[in-house]
């Protein structure tokens, strides 16, 4: 039995401790907002927060997050009101949308720790997230907009 907190709820798993967090979230908790893209830590589609820090859930076994607190896209806000989500919507960032939960989780983690990131900070924080549709320019702009709206508040 492995116990952890997911989106502020305690969850107990009767599962193989080697199972990557990604599949536990998707197949057991049915939280399908977190996506599979590579299974190797190469694409960022599976990004979630572990005690606030961005991690690739495909590359972390369930046993390693026992007792920890996980936030997924479903827990970023109840209603899409997180500044990152709002900024994403504002300038229509998503194309197919598939990579976007991972992109938004990476962006939210970046802004939580660096409220006014410059271009290099954004590149560094976001280059682990691939978008095959090519939404990088809008992601960058949305992060800047979210940072600005955060400053204004």
């Amino acid at each position: 039995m492995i116990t952890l907190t997911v989106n502020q709820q305690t969850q107990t798993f009767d599962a193989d401790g080697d199972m990557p967090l990604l599949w536990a979230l998707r197949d057991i908790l049915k939280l399908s907002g977190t996506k599979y893209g590579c299974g190797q830590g190469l694409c960022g589609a599976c990004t979630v927060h572990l005690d606030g820090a961005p991690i690739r859930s495909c590359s972390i076994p369930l046993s390693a997050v026992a007792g920890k607190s996980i936030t997924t896209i479903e827990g970023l806000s109840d209603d899409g009101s997180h500044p990152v989500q709002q900024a994403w919507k504002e300038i229509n960032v998503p194309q197919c949308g598939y990579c976007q939960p991972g992109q938004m989780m990476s962006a939210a983690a970046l802004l939580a720790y660096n409220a006014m990131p410059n271009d290099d900070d954004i590149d560094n924080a976001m280059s682990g997230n691939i978008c095959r549709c090519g939404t990088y320019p809008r992601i960058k702009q949305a992060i800047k907009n979210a940072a600005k709206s955060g400053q204004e508040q």
Partner: protein
Amino acid sequence: MSEQKRNDVSLLNRRQFLQASGVAGSGLLLGAPLLQAKPSAVPMDVLSGAKSNSEDFLRLNLFVELALDGTVRIVCHRSEMGQGIRTGLPQVLADEMGADWNKVQVIQGQANREYGSQNTDGSRSVRDFYLPMRKMGAAAREMLRQAAAKKWAVDAGQINVANHQLSDGKNTATFAEMATLAAQQSLPNLDSLKLKAKKDFNYIGKPIDGIDMPAFIQGKAEFGVDVELPDMVHASIERSPVLGGKLLSLDDKEALAVPGVIRVEKIQGRPLPAAFNAIEGVAVIASNTWAAQQGRKKLKLKWDLGANQTHGSEGYNKTLAASHDIEEGSLKLFEQGNVQKAFKTAEHIVEANYFVPYLAHASMEPPAATAIFKDGHCEVWACSQTPQSAQRQVAGSLGIKPENVTVHVTYLGGGFGRKSKPDFVAEAALLAKQIGKPVKVIWSREDDIRHDYLHAVCDTQLKAALDKNGKITAWQGSAALPSIGSTFGPADSMAGWELDQGFTDFPFEVANVELHRRKINAHMRIGWLRSVINIPMAFANGSLMGELAAAAKIDAKAFWLQSIGEDRSIKPRLSSYSNYGKNIAEYPNDTARAKAVIEKACANAGWNDPREAGVGFGLSYHYSFLAHVAVVAKVVMDGKSPKILSLHCVADAGQVVNPDRVKSQLEGAMIFGTSIAMYSEITTKDGVVEQGNFDGYRLARMSECPDIHIDIIEADDAPRGVGEPGVPPVAPAITNAIADAGGPRIRRLPVAKTLPV
């Protein structure tokens, strides 16, 4: 027997294949019979969250329902994969109908021939359905108007319909109030409908927010990988590593011992050609994805790999290059004048081979499908670009009729042509039947890259001559590539239409021309990828133009403009020219528009301004999917390593429906093109793809993404292609810029093969 024949899978695939490649017409049969389709013939899907009781909805026509509360439901019958079609087409319909966009719901259409083609491929959704959607909207509006005319006893012509309201100046009514009466009106004649004038457009041409944005930003959109059915199991499939391989033996003892694994099932392949058939393989079925993957690793399989196991890129690429000298079996596509004579009197001659490797689609969502089989009926949910073709493939694979297959289309996490091949849907259907339970098949990234329908590797040899005024006097081309036709026919198939995409239709007036296609055997599943053969052809043509301009010491922009020449509609060289399935009189290729996008891209990039030392400028232009696109790249060399500073893109794609989505498609195309130019390559050894994931198959990341500037030239004619035409000119613009920045002339993609990037 003849009925049987019509259901033959390979025949249907062939048709599918022609449609996908733009050879056949749209197949749209929109007209009275379609409008009169019984409401029951149109399944309304609740995938997209339209949960209201369908009894409250009154059908006005095949694409439109009106609810008693005034909600308008519009069917989107094309697949959403990032191009915004679930917004674009309903936006067109709502505009004509006079509906308020805030009261519109979009329903994803299931596979249904009544809709016409659902093959979301070839940049055709708006091009082919702009007018039909307007007619559907206008038809619904007319029924509302007729209803009001009866109720108010006035002439229908006096009634104005706008913003979800009807009014004759004296009376007014909402759509809700008129719904019941409207649904009782007879269907108007589609051909006599009056369509709105452009100046009256409310939504067409406006950057309406994507209808799916709220779902996307909350992770709530249901993709193919996300489908959940009660009692569902998960499958991971080990497929023949080589095309055409057969399973010799299977030992699944250890696999079955993995906790969570339920059973192991063989998937029977079919003889080549591959078509859209499931690949021979072994599926491990488990209670979750992870257990299925673990069990799969424990399978002990022996394969008869067959003839394609000798296929290796190293030797094959040499075969392609050598084939340009082999006349036997090759096809002379076109000849005019005498190129040899022209070369003799030329002032400058440039001759080179331009190479583009195999490419994989690598959509971020891998292929995924979920199926259930019960009482002779199969129901599937899949991220499919072609639900009707998936329906036929499933029917053929299971030996049932297409009517007994229901295909639900989920959101697609990217498609780029991969998801128009329903082999993965057939896998889920076969497994569902074999095990009698709902089953979800998700391909791993490695499965996706190793078992793709690859974009053809292509070696193009071009030779051109200039006279002393810099005029192109001769153009000789030779194309060596495995054909898409090989996936549906003989390995050395040479379907001529492929080369209509950039090889035979280069936009320069040249007196002496000779064009050949070489006979090449395919050893992999060859498919179409965003922009198709335009990718290697634009790279070859655009690079050659850069080289010719340099040889003649003419400014590249001036050289492009003078080579395109005077204003005219370009006459196709080949009488068989497919023109992307459209009548050339309606969709002419006008050189004035070509020159306009070039001029504008150069102006936007500051082509004529004083240039910073070390910054190389590269220009390319390409016409594909009936759209004109020019790209200017700016590059600096950091030692041996090129850095792309910016890409300035200008497109003319005719009438634009949603400028913001067109812009985002072009942004995406610039980045898709950057990946192709700089990073991506698939190679094979012993018949097996050598790359498996994003470490080996590189895609552009944010830090590698240049500044991107998009400009759209608005035109008044019919909509043209948008999703694909942005990609082809990117690579030659970049490599021309590298040469201009003092780097080497790159004739082989990706640049990463030659320079550190």
